[in-house]
């Protein structure tokens, strides 16, 4: 029963954090290089520009859902099950979502890296 709870939490973490990652990545690409912006206009301009991006708030809300699911998951399962299992699945979901929604060019090098890391994370959850 505890396992079922832990895996439901993992499923929720994957869904919420993939949504969040894609929205946040999209927002930050619209903001542009924050290091450059900080140098030219100061840190307040960076914070202002980030907060003024509507998709950032949405992404943050999705991340909030993922965070509380993680708290649930950690209270039911081992740290070394919940974190790798949700991370591995989030990882695969993110690679697909980044290609579909963010139009990132996922070349051979990145697919190999993605597969190595995802399978490594799965092995760690066994």
């Amino acid at each position, binding site marked *: 029963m505890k396992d079922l709870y832990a895996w439901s939490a993992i499923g929720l973490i994957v869904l919420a954090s993939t949504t969040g990652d894609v929205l946040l990545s999209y927002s930050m690409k619209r903001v*542009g290089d924050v290091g450059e912006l900080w140098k030219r206009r100061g840190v307040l301009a960076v914070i202002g520009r980030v907060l003024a991006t509507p998709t950032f708030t949405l992404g943050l809300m999705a991340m909030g859902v993922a965070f509380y699911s993680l708290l649930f998951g950690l*209270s039911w399962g081992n740290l070394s099950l919940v974190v790798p299992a949700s991370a591995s699945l989030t990882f695969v979901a993110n690679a697909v979502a*980044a290609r579909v929604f963010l139009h990132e060019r996922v070349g051979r090098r990145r697919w190999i890296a993605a597969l*190595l*890391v995802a399978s490594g994370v799965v*092995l*760690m959850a*066994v």
Partner: protein
Amino acid sequence: MTLRKYLVLAGITLFSTAGDSLLARGMKDLGGFSLHNFSGLLLAILNPWVAMGILFLLTFFACYMSALSWADLTYVLPATSLAYVLVALIGHFRLHEAISPTRWLGIALIAAGVGFVAAGPSFTPSHERPNSRNASRDPVSAEVKP
């Protein structure tokens, strides 16, 4: 990729690991939660371990947002995935959770994947992006420009 950018990627790895471990430490103090005890979950942030964990995760988040502003999501995620290895090692040494041979193999695969993606380009601009200004500044990604 400059030294500053590599430091930001290292910050993502370290702060997320420290944050997760502190959270786990705090949640073990508090015991299991159930769905009808939701207020208990909201009060969890009063535990000092959980509060410290949240502080570290906020720092992680600032680094993560910075990285996403100049690198692809499919670059940042593998490049910072050593965090899972660190989480397992901390779980092993601090929280006394066991690491099996399979898990050690997983650690090796992740490390290999990190090396693979870190050697490639960090930013692949697409025609969808509004700020293609960044593309001309980075010689590696300029090559793959459509």
